[in-house]
């Protein structure tokens, strides 16, 4: 890549992944973020951090699994805290049919019985007779992972400037990568917000070493261990752009799921309730669009950590391809 100067706007998972990918290909990169600190105003901060392409395959487009599978290696390489312990899918006995159906719609899993469940997750021993185990999946703590990316960028001489609000048109640089998420709807009218809510609890009595999904008729529920007794329970998906704190109804459903997984969660301490809006296009798949010197990378929906590495590659490939021919500013508009 020619040594372009590139401004990335937004220090969520999309922006940071793009910055790292572009810096890795030799560009001079700077990241600006209007939040005053990492995570402020970024929906990546509320993410589950599951790298679960094959679990997602059961309910989403095949493209998500195809593009997401490589993110496990990407994260392992850039964030040593990435845990490659697989994931587990269970259902309450009354929802047993949903487990069969989930299995029919995806791949790369094993049907496991009570003994294997007990050996994988001793605290779940005796609670489920059957489960699906996806050995190749991974998970990470999104907040630590984002911090690790900022550190990596710093090591490569890429500054991340917080508290700086720039419009893409006014941003310096030969090329601007607009990773503002839902804020970018001023220029992306087909972007919508899909509300999600989550809970973080502390429970010292339970240890899990991998995310556990619990099939639920309404919510794609999961519990992700974050270490030190912390667990993230997520996440609702509501076609609403209402801001504001998690609702009682959603919170009750999320907490109920944890309690159903293990009654010891009944004694857990509620550490945090979160709610935010995921940026999504109509097909719920991310896109890269070009307008002059501005590339807009957006629409990661509920797959921020899973798909951001692939999105970043797409951004970098687009820039590389274009610059092999001519200077970006002179190219016709996309």
């Amino acid at each position, binding site marked *: 890549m020619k040594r372009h100067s590139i401004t990335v706007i937004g220090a969520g998972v999309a922006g940071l992944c793009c910055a790292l990918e572009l810096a890795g290909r030799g560009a001079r990169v700077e990241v600006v973020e209007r939040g005053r600190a990492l995570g402020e105003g970024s929906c990546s901060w509320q993410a589950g951090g599951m790298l679960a392409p094959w679990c997602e395959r059961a309910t989403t487009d095949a493209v998500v699994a195809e593009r997401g599978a490589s993110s496990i290696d990407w994260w392992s390489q850039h964030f040593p805290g990435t845990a490659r312990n697989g994931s587990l899918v269970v259902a309450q006995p009354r929802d047993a049919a949903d487990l069969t159906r989930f299995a029919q719609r995806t791949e790369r899993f094993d049907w496991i019985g009570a003994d294997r469940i007990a050996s994988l997750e001793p605290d779940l021993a005796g609670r489920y007779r059957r489960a699906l185990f996806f050995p190749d999946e991974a998970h990470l703590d999104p907040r630590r992972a984002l911090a690790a990316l900022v550190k990596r960028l710093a090591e490569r001489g890429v500054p991340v400037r917080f508290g700086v609000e720039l419009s893409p048109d006014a941003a310096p640089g030969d090329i601007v990568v607009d990773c503002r998420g839902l804020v970018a709807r001023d220029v992306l009218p087909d972007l*919508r917000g899909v509300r999600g809510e989550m809970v973080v609890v502390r429970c010292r009595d339970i240890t899990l070493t991998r995310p556990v999904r619990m099939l639920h008729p309404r919510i794609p529920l999961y519990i992700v261990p974050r270490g030190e007794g912390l667990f993230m329970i997520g996440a609702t998906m*509501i076609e609403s752009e209402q801001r504001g704190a998690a*609702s009682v109804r959603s919170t009750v459903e999320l907490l109920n799921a944890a309690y159903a997984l293990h009654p010891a969660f009944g004694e857990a301490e509620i550490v945090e309730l979160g709610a935010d809006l995921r940026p999504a296009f109509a*097909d*719920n*798949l991310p896109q890269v669009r070009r307008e002059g010197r501005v590339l807009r990378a957006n629409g990661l929906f509920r797959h921020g950590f899973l798909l951001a590495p692939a999105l970043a590659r797409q951004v970098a490939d687009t820039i590389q391809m274009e610059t092999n021919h001519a200077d970006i500013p002179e190219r016709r508009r996309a």
Partner: protein
Amino acid sequence: MSFYGVELSSRLLLGTARYPSPAILVEAIKASGAEVVTVSLRRESGADRAGQSFWSLIRALGLRVLPNTAGCHSVKEAVTTAHMARELFDTTWIKLEVIGDADTLQPDVFGLVEAARILAEDGFEVFPYTTEDLVVADRLVEAGCRVLMPWGAPIGSARGLNNVYGLRSLRAHFPDIPLVVDAGLGVPSHAAAAMELGYDAVLLNTAVAEAGDPVEMARAFALAVEAGRAAYLAQPLEPRDMAAPSTPVIGKAALGD
């Protein structure tokens, strides 16, 4: 077929929840040929019109929207939601759901009748989600409902028509009220069976939304609804116990020796 004076040619009504994406929802609606789509209104989306982005995708299709008081467990909740829906979608139509049991999502028929009366008096055109119970149906008609929507089976259960006898008897008692089987259908043959009973239409959501290929499943249901309706009009046979040979047996030519 008409609902509250509105003539419709498609006998398939489609719900809009739980599709993999709004884009697939739009394709599925087109494939189904539906002219009416239900939209469930949760209060968090209603406040400040926070669900606008999603609804605008549906509105752009130019179909008639039947807002739904999904997930309401009390008369008051359902009435409040109905008012919000009337304002947001600018329609007097309301699919009235008052849930009585959280596990089966069975209608609370007592609350349903009460809410239907309140809403009908207030100028709403109510589509009550009810059971196949005749007496309840009678009370709903008394309350002002001119369409009835009995369940086939619990919402999302994909079990088909749980009580064919009850549904048939409901049809016989209300020859002039449009009847729509709402909820519980899993596969197109369930929809065809409902239409063969003489039901005016079927309403689906999960069976299409959560199919592996929602668009293709929407098309399959549209075909089944058409087939079932045609079969009903063509006056099907009644089952019988003994064979009824379709060719004469006496005087049949003996083949061979």
